[in-house]
C-alpha cells in the first residue's frame, strides 16, 4: 500500500509539469486556434534563463547576501517575466504574420521556431550540447508520514503548481483581461467588434502561457537536477498530448490530461514488467486511444460545422 501511495506521489509530480505545459497549449489554442509546437522549447528556455540568473547572482555574490527563500522566488518571478515576454516576442515575429494564413503554415512556423530556440540555447550556452546541472534551489529535507516518504521539494513543486493554476483561473475569471481572453477564445471577430483589442489580448495570452511554461521548465530542472537543451522537444509533445487528452482549448482539461499522462507513465514503469523503457509508448497509446474514440478530449466540446 505504501508503495502505491509513493507511486501516486510520483505520478502527481510528473503530472504537475505536464499540466503546466498543457495549460499553455490550451491557452494558445483557445485564443488563436493555433497549436504552438515550440511551446515545450519555450518552457525549457525558462529553465535556462533561471540558470543564467542563478550564475549571475552567484557571480555578484547575492547568493551569500540574500537568504534562499528570497532569492529563489525572485529568480523564478524574473524568469517568468523574461520568458513571458520572449513568448510574446515569438508570437509577434512568428505567429502573428500567419494569423489569417492556412493553419498548416503556422504549424510549420512554430515547429521551425522550436528548432531555432533549441539551437540558439545549444550554441549560445557554454557547452550547450551537454546536460547542465540545475542548482538545488528547493529544500532537500524529507520526512515520513505513516511509512510514506514525503519530500519538502516535492511538496513545494506541488504547491507551486496548485497556486499558479488557482491564480490563473482567478485571472481568467475575475479580471478584464481574463474576460477578453475568454471572449476571443469564443469568437475573435465578435470580440473585436465589441471593442476588445485583439493584439493586446493575444499578447497577454502568450505572456501568461509562456510564464507558466517557464515555471514548468524550472520545476523539471529542480525535480531532476539537470536540464538539456533538447528536453523541450519531448516535453512539448507530452504537454500537447496532455492537452489533447484533456480537451484542446479547455484550460481545465489540461489538468486532467496532464495527470492522466503522469499516472500512465508512472504506473507503466512501476507495475508492467519490463515496462520502464516503454513508458512513452504507453503514454502515446493513451493519446491515440483518445484521438480515435474521443478526439475532442475529456472536457473538449464537440464542434459542429454548418454546411
Amino acid at each position, binding site marked *: 500500500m505504501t*508503495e502505491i501511495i509513493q*507511486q501516486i506521489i*510520483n505520478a502527481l509530480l510528473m503530472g504537475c509539469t505536464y499540466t503546466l505545459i498543457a495549460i499553455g497549449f490550451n491557452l494558445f489554442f483557445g485564443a488563436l486556434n493555433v497549436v504552438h509546437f515550440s511551446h515545450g522549447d519555450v518552457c525549457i528556455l525558462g529553465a535556462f534563463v533561471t540558470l543564467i540568473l542563478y550564475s549571475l547572482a552567484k557571480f555578484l555574490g547575492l547568493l551569500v547576501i540574500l537568504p534562499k527563500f528570497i532569492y529563489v522566488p525572485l529568480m523564478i518571478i524574473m524568469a517568468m517575466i523574461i520568458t513571458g515576454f520572449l513568448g510574446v516576442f515569438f508570437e509577434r515575429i512568428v505567429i502573428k504574420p500567419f494569423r489569417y494564413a492556412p493553419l498548416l503554415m503556422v504549424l510549420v512556423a512554430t515547429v521551425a521556431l522550436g528548432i531555432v530556440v533549441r539551437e540558439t540555447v545549444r550554441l549560445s550556452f557554454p*557547452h550547450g550540447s551537454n546536460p547542465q546541472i540545475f542548482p*538545488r534551489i528547493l529544500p532537500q529535507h524529507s520526512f515520513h508520514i505513516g511509512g510514506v516518504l514525503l519530500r519538502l521539494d516535492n511538496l513545494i513543486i506541488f504547491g507551486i503548481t496548485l497556486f499558479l493554476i488557482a491564480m490563473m483561473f482567478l485571472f481568467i475569471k475575475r479580471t478584464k483581461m481574463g474576460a477578453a481572453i475568454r471572449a476571443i477564445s469564443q469568437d475573435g471577430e465578435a470580440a473585436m467588434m465589441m471593442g476588445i483589442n485583439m493584439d493586446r489580448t493575444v499578447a497577454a495570452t502568450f505572456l501568461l502561457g509562456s510564464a507558466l511554461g517557464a515555471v514548468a521548465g524550472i520545476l523539471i530542472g529542480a525535480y531532476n537536477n539537470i536540464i538539456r537543451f533538447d528536453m523541450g522537444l519531448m516535453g512539448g509533445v507530452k504537454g500537447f498530448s496532455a492537452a489533447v487528452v484533456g480537451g484542446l482549448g479547455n484550460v481545465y482539461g489540461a489538468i486532467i490530461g496532464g495527470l492522466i499522462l503522469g499516472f500512465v507513465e508512472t504506473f507503466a*514503469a512501476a507495475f508492467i514488467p519490463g515496462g520502464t523503457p516503454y513508458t512513452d509508448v504507453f503514454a502515446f497509446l493513451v493519446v491515440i486511444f483518445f484521438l480515435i474514440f474521443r478526439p475532442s478530449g475529456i472536457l473538449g466540446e464537440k464542434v459542429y460545422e454548418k454546411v
Partner: protein
Amino acid sequence: MKIVCRIVRVSLIVFTAIFFITSVGWTQAKVVKIGFIGPLTGPNAAQGVGARNAFDLAIREANASGKFQYKIEMVALDDASDPATGVAAALKLVSDPAVVAASGHWNSPVALATIHTFHTYRIPFIVWGAIHPDITGFYKYPGVNRVAPTLVQENSPLCDWVITELGYKAFSIISDTSSYGEMNTKAFRPMAENKGVKILSVDSVTVGTTDFRPILTKIKGLNPDAVYFGGVVMEGALIKDQMEKVGLKRMFCAISGIKDDKFLEVAGPSGEGALSIKPGKPIEKLEGGTKFVKSYETAGYREPYGAYGPNAYDSAGIILEAISKVGPEDKTALMKYIRGIKYKGLMGETTFDATGQTTNIIVSRFVGQDGKWVVWEDSAYSKGARKLPKP
C-alpha cells in the same frame, strides 16, 4: 634553331629548379594525420574531451621530440555518443588520404558501428574507451585493437569486490537499453548468481531518461542489499541521486561507465559511497603518472583528462611508435606492427592478443567520498571511518 635550343635548355633548368624547390618544401611540410573520435559533446563529453586532450598531448610531445621527419597532426572529431554521428566521423577520417591511423570511442554502440568502416578502408584503429566484448572478441578485425579491458573483464573484479569481499547478497539490476547496458546485465548476472547472489529485479531504462523514481520506488519495495547499474555517467548519477530521494538508501555499484567526476557533480551529496571500478592503476601509482599530470597541466588544457585520458595517451603512443618504426605509408604494415607491439607506456606494458584485445587488464577500485573518487584502499570506507549501507 640555336634560340630554340637555348629556350629549351633554360626552361629545363627553370622547371628542374622549381621541381626541386617545391619537392624539398613538400617534404619539410609533409603532414601525417592521426584521427581521434570521441564524445566531445553530449552527456559523455567529459570523457571524450579529456581523452582528446591526452591524445593531443602525446602528439605534441612526439612533434617536439624531433624524432619524426614530418609533422604529426591530430584530427579530432565528435561522435556525440551517437552511432550515426560516429560513422559519419569515421567516413570523414578514412576519406582523408593523409590520415594513417585512428583511435576512438568511449561508447560501445558507437565503436560497434564504426569498426567496420575502419576495417573496410584498412585504417589501423585503436579503441581507447569502449568496452563491449564484441568489438574485439566477435569481429576479430586484424586492424582493430583495444587498450581498455572488456566489460566482462571489469565486471569480474567488481563481483569479487562487492559480493565476496563486502558481502552484498541481494541485488537489483538496472541497465540502459544500449548494447553496452544489455551486455553488462548479461555479464554481471551469471557471475553474481554463481556467487550465490539473489537477483531481485532486472530493469532497463532508456538513455536520456531523467526521472527514475517510479522504478526506484518499485525496487525499494523489493528491499535489495544493493543496486547494480549497467550504464554510463548521466543516468547513473541521476539514479544514485534519486535513490536517496525515494529513500532507497542502498549500496550502488557500477563498472567504469560511471567513473567520472561528472557523476559526482550531478549526483551531489548522494554520490557519497558509490562504488566503481576503472581499468588501469590510479594515475599517481603509474610509473610515468606524475610526469603525465605535470605535462598535461603545463600544456594548459582546461578540462581534466578524465578516467580514460591515460588510455587515449597510450593509444596515441602506440600509433606513433608504429609510424616511427614502419613509416606512415604502408597501412598493412602499421596494422601488423600494432598487433604485435610490446608497448611500454603510461599504463604499463601493453600487448594485444589474437583478437586485438589488450592483455594489460589491471583494474582499480574507487569509492565516491566527499565529492571525489577515492581509491578504495585509501578511503575512509576501507579504513572503517565511514560505513557503506549494510548488506
